[in-house]
């Protein structure tokens, strides 16, 4: 197991480096002026450009630029927003909020998708199954921004059940609706995978062996089948995490949540390219780390993947 974790870590590092390199290239190595808009409507003064060139090493060869970038990234020197705030400060303030939102969303997803998905898998073609399948397809097809502001409008404004926008402190209770909105599209996929895994697994030979040992059906399904279902489900969760992160930009924007997504949303609106690029890069790094962790947990659950 440790060997697997070690190997995975080793594989992870080049991917991390490559991904950050790509992000860097997308901003600095492509045609375009990365400082556009920094100085208001006019082009920046020569002094400013000179200072920036010095700071980011823009007159050095590309490789050196990249290394400078990498060094900055690793030391947490992420530059500043157009209004002069340190991006690293902004992130450290915003991250806990987004983290809470993400966790609540994942909990909602897992609880709902697991209960409905597993139940549908056990009782296929029942009323729950058909309804769930139908509903999940529709929910999956609705773009997240539509769901977000419809929810905001209907539940927040019209019915007044929740506050339409989240207060700056972002207490957990107010995060539930946005988290649910975030969860919806992903929940559909998770539910279907769980249903498929359960339905397929019910016919497995190893369940027959478990029954031949005289175990109660609750143990046969609850222990023997479930363990086999968990690994693919977790895998899906990890893959869909990307969608979750992308969705936070929109959901936090609409609900005015001061998390990482919200900052990115505002930066996009304000056309602060560099801020956007830097913050998204951080999000991507975060996503890679989470994926690594999920992979390792999956290998713990399904030993067959350890030898891959």
């Amino acid at each position, binding site marked *: 197991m440790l060997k697997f974790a070690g190997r995975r870590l080793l*594989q992870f590092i*080049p*991917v*991390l480096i*490559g*991904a950050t390199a*790509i*992000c860097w290239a*997308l*901003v600095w190595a*492509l*045609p*375009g002026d*990365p400082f*556009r808009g920094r100085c208001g409507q006019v082009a920046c003064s020569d002094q400013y450009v000179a200072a920036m060139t010095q700071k980011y090493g823009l007159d050095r060869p590309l490789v050196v630029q990249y290394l400078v970038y990498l060094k900055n990234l690793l030391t947490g020197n992420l530059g500043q927003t157009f209004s002069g705030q340190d991006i690293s400060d902004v992130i450290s303030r915003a991250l806990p909020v987004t983290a809470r939102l993400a966790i609540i969303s994942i909990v909602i997803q897992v609880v709902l998708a697991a209960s409905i998905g597993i139940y549908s898998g056990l009782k296929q073609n029942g009323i729950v199954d058909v309804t769930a399948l139908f509903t999940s*397809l*529709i929910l*999956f*097809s*609705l*773009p*997240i*921004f*539509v769901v977000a*502001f*419809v929810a905001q*409008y209907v539940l927040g*404004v019209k019915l007044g059940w929740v506050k339409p926008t989240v207060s700056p402190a972002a207490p957990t209770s107010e995060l539930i609706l946005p988290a649910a909105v975030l969860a919806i599209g*992903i929940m559909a*996929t*998770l539910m279907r*995978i769980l249903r*498929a895994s359960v339905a397929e697994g019910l016919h497995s030979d190893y369940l027959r062996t478990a029954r031949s040992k005289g175990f109660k059906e609750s143990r046969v399904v609850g222990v023997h089948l479930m363990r086999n279902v968990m690994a*693919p489900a977790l*895998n*899906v969760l990890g*893959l*869909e995490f*990307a*969608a979750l*992160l*992308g*969705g936070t*930009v*929109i959901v936090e*924007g609409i609900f005015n949540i001061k998390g990482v997504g919200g900052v*990115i949303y505002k930066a*996009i*609106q304000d*056309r602060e*390219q560099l801020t*956007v*690029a830097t913050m*998204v*890069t951080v*999000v*991507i790094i975060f*996503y*890679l780390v989470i*994926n690594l962790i999920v992979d390792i947990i999956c290998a713990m659950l399904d030993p067959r993947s350890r030898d891959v």
Partner: protein
Amino acid sequence: MSEPLADEMAAEVEQDSPVHPATVSRAEAEANDTRSHGVWIDAWRILRRKPLFVISVSVIAILTVMAIAPWLFASGDPNKGDLAYSLKPPSPAGWFGFDINGRNVYTRVIYGARASLTVGFACTIGTALIGIFFGSIAAYTGGATDSVISRIGDMLLGIPFALAAIIVLSTLTTFDTPNWQVEIILIMTIIVFGWPSIARVLRSTVLVTRNADYVVAGQALGLSGSRVLFRHILPNAVSPILVLSTMRVGGYIATEASLSYLGLGLHPPAVSWGQMVSDGQPYLRTAFYVLLFPSIFLAITILAFVLAGEALREALDPANRK
């Protein structure tokens, strides 16, 4: 924004083991030949009868026509507005009502189909072609080339294409960038970050079927390498890719809509449903129809592709055939 990467996993589950048994005689090898085409005939027969598939494909067809020739569905200029009609509700004059600028929402919705469908189709075809190309090279040549391609693929996979699109579009485009450029940039970004998952599926399918008995038998009978590749390996590999691709179209369309919503995608004079939703947001309370109809169309478009993909997956699933 949705990233149906999980569907890749589902597709991988599907292409478990080749359907064909081991063959010995030439006659059987030839029979296998027709059987691999028979997969498609079988699938088509199943699909023809599924109402959901027929409906969703019809919807896609209608939307495609709408995208290519919007004037067939709506007369008038989507960008010309009469302020006198500002925010008027649906009526015979304008079936979907009018937006703040007095523009006919119905006309704009029809013209908006182009953006979504262009992105959807272009990205799907692009990722599929490039993915198949690199995937088969990687699988067939193996060795260093395989490693390099796989490593690069891993790095690109690590970056969700929606997030990459945000970086690229915000860096490279402004309000002044011509729409066609924006569109190309968006499509290229999605293709660049989307092909690795297709390539991965193709590569593993090729590797699995390459060692399958019937392929080895074919080679033993003296069938040339390329014949083996085209008649035996590729047909088997294409179906999971087809399934995977159709399932991702919805994601591409949603991504385009979301980016337009954020203000990063297409801007006037091009019409995009996402942009319409974003424009209409302030009028949610007073004139919800400005938002409602583009949202409905978005949902229907994505749903149509998702349903068609589901039907395709079920039809191509070897378990469904006798």
